[in-house]
């Protein structure tokens, strides 16, 4: 946790030092984890919505978004892959192994993630308020 904390703070510093109105550097994005990207995405959603950004709201949206991505991924999987992954995880497969299986399955993880996030955002912006 401490290490992540430090890393985040470094990122924060770099952001602070970015010139105003500058485009987001690619290398900056490359360094972010998915978790961080989602956090940024959610932050932007809240900002665009025009509501107050509370920690609780952020956490809720982040988790909801992550769940939605996971759900869509599962729904896109053929039956045998669902069975296989369940078994592998029960047999103790780690994150790396699981992601490898998913990647090898041919499921378009990128597109599903992207489209799910876009839809999530649109629904939020057009949907109910929190």
């Amino acid at each position, binding site marked *: 946790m401490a290490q992540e904390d430090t890393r*985040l*703070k470094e990122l*924060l510093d770099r*952001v602070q030092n970015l010139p105003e109105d*500058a*485009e*987001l550097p*690619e290398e900056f*994005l*490359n360094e972010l*984890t*998915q978790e961080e*990207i*989602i956090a*940024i*995405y959610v*932050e*932007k959603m809240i*900002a*665009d919505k025009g509501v107050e*950004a509370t*920690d*609780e709201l*952020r*956490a809720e*949206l*982040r*988790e*909801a978004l992550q769940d939605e*991505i*996971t759900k*869509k991924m599962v*729904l*896109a*999987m*053929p039956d*045998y892959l*669902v069975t296989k*992954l369940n078994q592998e*995880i029960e047999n103790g497969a780690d994150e790396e192994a699981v*992601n*490898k299986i998913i*990647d090898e*399955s*041919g*499921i*378009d*993880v*990128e*597109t*599903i*993630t*992207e*489209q799910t996030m876009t*839809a999530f*955002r*649109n*629904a*939020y912006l*057009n949907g109910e308020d929190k």
Partner: protein
Amino acid sequence: MERGNEFKAGQPIVGDEAMNDMPTFADRVRENVPEALEYLEQHPDLKKNMANATRKLEELNQLLESENINDAEAANSTFVSAVETFNNVVRRNKELENKLEDHEIRKLDGEYSEAEYDQAVADTKSQFVNEGDKLAAADAGLVYNEAIAKNEAAKAKLDDLETRKLDGDLSEEEYQAAKAAADQEIADNDRAIRESQAVLTSDKLEDVQAAAKAKLDDLETRKLDGDLSEEEYQAAKADVEANLKNAEGSTEVAKAVNDRKAAETRIVEAKKALDSLETQMLDGQLSKEEYDNGVKKLNDEIEASQKIVEESNAIIENSRFEATSADAPEGEPKGEDPELVEARAAYKVAEQLNKDARAEMEAIEKSGKTDEETNAAYERILAKIHDSEKAMRDMDARIKALENAAAGTAEAGTAKPEGAEAGEAKPEGAKSAEGEDGKGAGEAKPEGAKAGAEEDDPKGEKDNDPEWKEFFDNYFNDEAVRGVYTRNGVFDEESCRIAVRNFYVAKKKNEAAEKAAAAKAAAEAAKAPEGDDGKPEKGEGNDDDFENDEQRGLFAKLKNFFKGNKRSKTGAERALKEGKKETLKKTIYAALLALVTTMSIGSALQNAGLFDRNTAPEPTKIEAEDTGNAEVDLNEVAEDLSLNVDLNAEKGEELSDLVNTTSYGEDIEVNISAGDYDGTSEFFDYEEKHGQHNLTKELYDMGNEELTDVQKAEQIAEGLANVLDDPVEQGQFAALGGTDVVIGDREGGITSLADMNEVLDLAQQDDEFRETLTEYNKEMYRDMVDNYDLQVEHRAQGTHHRSLYAYEMQLEDGTSDINYAIDKDGVLAREDFDALQFVDEDGQNILDKNDIGGYKYNFLKAIGIIAADATDEEAQDVMSKIRIIGFSGKCGQLIWENITPDTGSEGTGDEGTGREDTGDEGTGTENEDTGDEGTGTENEGTGDEGTGTENEGTGDEGTGTENEGTGDEGTGTEGTGTEGTGTEGTGTEGTGTEGTGTEGTGTEGTGTEGTGTEGTGTEGTGTEGTGDEYDGKTDILPGEPGDGWTVIDHPTPEETGPVSEAGGDNGYVNDNTPGSSSEVAQDDFLNGGDQGGGNTDADGGGSNNPETEATYDGSDTSGWKGDTQSEEPGTQDIQEPSTPEEVNAVNDSQANQESAGENASEDQIREDHDAMMDRF
């Protein structure tokens, strides 16, 4: 224009009446089965080997002659199986006969020396023998299935005999006689099961041996790893070896079965010949001596054959081979509908096949082998899994339907059994419920009590519930019910009371179960979403979108695993970048800061969700007033939808002027003013259609899970025939044709999108043009249907494909114009669907053959993917990167997918792309948005050079091979060369091995080749910003200028015109396929659908990439989606402002997931209830 073969349905070709003149399946069966039987008569050897298929065909023929047959019956699985068996075999037989004839011709022409001729003939004849073996297997499959079904019925009959005996309906003597007959029947069936299973097992012995070896290797490895004790290892090893030995024993049984069959046939024929001899002698055609000699010879032959029969029977009897049990599951209701019995038996067979296939797959996966042979086996097994799962689903649905029908009939008819006549002494009752022949269902025996009534009060005498009393009064006093329990004039009051009580008890239980299920569903619906724990319990769940608990369970597990997925991160980056291009600095800062302070993403969620996560997001829709021609500012719409529209683009303003819509969103509606058009085709009734093109009508009953693949193929084919008069469909078809579409004033071929649009315009505006074009296309279509087999490829929800789309725009003058365009990003299917293919005798899809002048060539040229001046070589190279899938059953458009060295369409998941450790770098390997990843990676390492190098290597990468799933043929025949793939081209083959590193093609980037060892992974492809490059411009649509496709000056098109072989005057028929005679065509008519037929392995499987179907913004509906048109004729303005893409991305993500929703019903209650239905 030349006419093709006359349409065999016998209807006139021209005229509106002939619009829907494509024959139905029953029509084709009616036409071709008699001919099939005649062919068998002329080929007794063939008939010998196909005794069972012949029998089925004869049965079918009788039905046809009775004129009672309908499509559903004709498409009954056992008929289809027999018909498919026949057609496969006969086609192959004819091909071999043709080959022999061809050898002879060549010898006469001097092409063969004597020795070469002899060798060629010997080779061909040996293929006959091989085919004979396959026949035997196919025929054995029929025997096996039938024997299982018959055995079930026979065993049920045995139980019924016992019941009737106890009932006093049979004397001891009668009972013993009937029992003996039933026992004999069961024994015969068991024997048939064993023998046919031996033949089937023997046919697949190699696979079984490979799987056993893999299993043994795995056991050894696990033992060495310490996962197994010595004892466990030895026990498991002994099991595997015993099973293998058993399987190997099948060979001798199979041979004996075939030998016996041949000998029995010889005996029958010899006896016929004896009769014939006698007749000839009596007619004076033979002398006495000739007669005697003939008789002796035939008798000797009979004797020898009888000996063979005896020896074969002994071998079979004494063989160590044991069949696997084919017993009915316990607890099956007695006296069931044979159809239900058969369906259950078929389900068990499919289940066993599935289980076996999964075990084999597991063994292969654990072996970790990636050689060609193993990969090929993997492909086959995957296909088996798909097919068997599909068969299980089909049978399950059928069983449910039959059970429901039985239950419904029983309940609806009150206690009065159908078929039971009042006062009739014979207790024939309950025919209603089960359709059981002669079963006295109304015979309430003491056994009835076992069905569920309270044993302590079997007659309900202690029950004072008024409801029960009323029920009892109604049923007990019902004349029909009493009639059931009256035998020989004597009313069995006690039995009747017990039966009525049993019925009541079961009814109440069922009602209780239904109520409980309803209450549970209501409780779940009212239940708040799970908290941060996120693990749904069985039967509960946050999300009704999941189809089963397995998915829910996986969802819960993946919550902890998925965040680290690199490819998901890539997608997330893309989503992030799609936001407006304003400064994100502040936002990022706030977000990261929040992360620092509240590090846990999994913090507790409050119950009140932000929005209801259990429902799909509402479509983004702008409700606009229906003001007809009211103009809408595109820019404003884009802004409202938060689309990434380049508002400053020049095109943006033009679009604003041209596009006249009143709403955007999920359901795009383009309001088109009515009555303001001049010269528009009558086909487009804008007033009624309200702007939505009626081009997305499903060509087949997509929701009907009971359809077999044959039926689907037939339905799609017929549906497609019915839309051949639609201008949008016509343009596509005409493009396939490739010849000059000379109609009226129009001259020239279709070699560009502009040409296609020109044809489309004319079809819309000129009735005469359209009629002529319809006939042109129908002729082409008939040729496809006549000469090739129909087949479907299953496309799963989420899989990706590309297609043309049609969009409609209202013009300034108030008219409307429809045009084609290509969606370079493709779409993801929102639901499962099927694509129709036409396959030749080699199983190749004729729409995807890489022949110059073939359908694929013509089509790709028409839509500009193959450059107009491309050389044949360049065209081949382009074609090798594209796989035409077929005609979408959803809407009739031709769909295709890009296949590149680093992706491979099999990446869709099931075709084993993933097996080869593609893993981490795999971005390039996936075919969805292949272009994006692929290009991304290429751009990383190679850029244009990469493309170039890929061109050299691509062919080798076997793009064609993978997609066909045809494996070896594909590799070689697609012109990919041998280096690249060599195997079924799942992408795993050779992509890495074939010089990924050495050739620097770009396979470096793919990382999928699982090579790892080739350095693909290490080349940093996947990590090199795949996806980072995504800006919509990196698609590798071949032929697209500027995307790495080097344009070279080439000769004019005339010099590189389509090449076709014999009969190629019209140029559009791929005459490279043999066996295109009408005779074969007729036989082929009956083929199609799932070539597996239950006995043979199907080729390939469906791809399972996630897909959704994007709807188009601006004009059209799903399937044919629209874009804004380029104003430059002849160009594909795919570089349009990204508005359509954005909307499509929005719409893609709003795919509605339908939940399967299965009713839970207590099995036991149902059993009890069914048992009760027996009594009535």
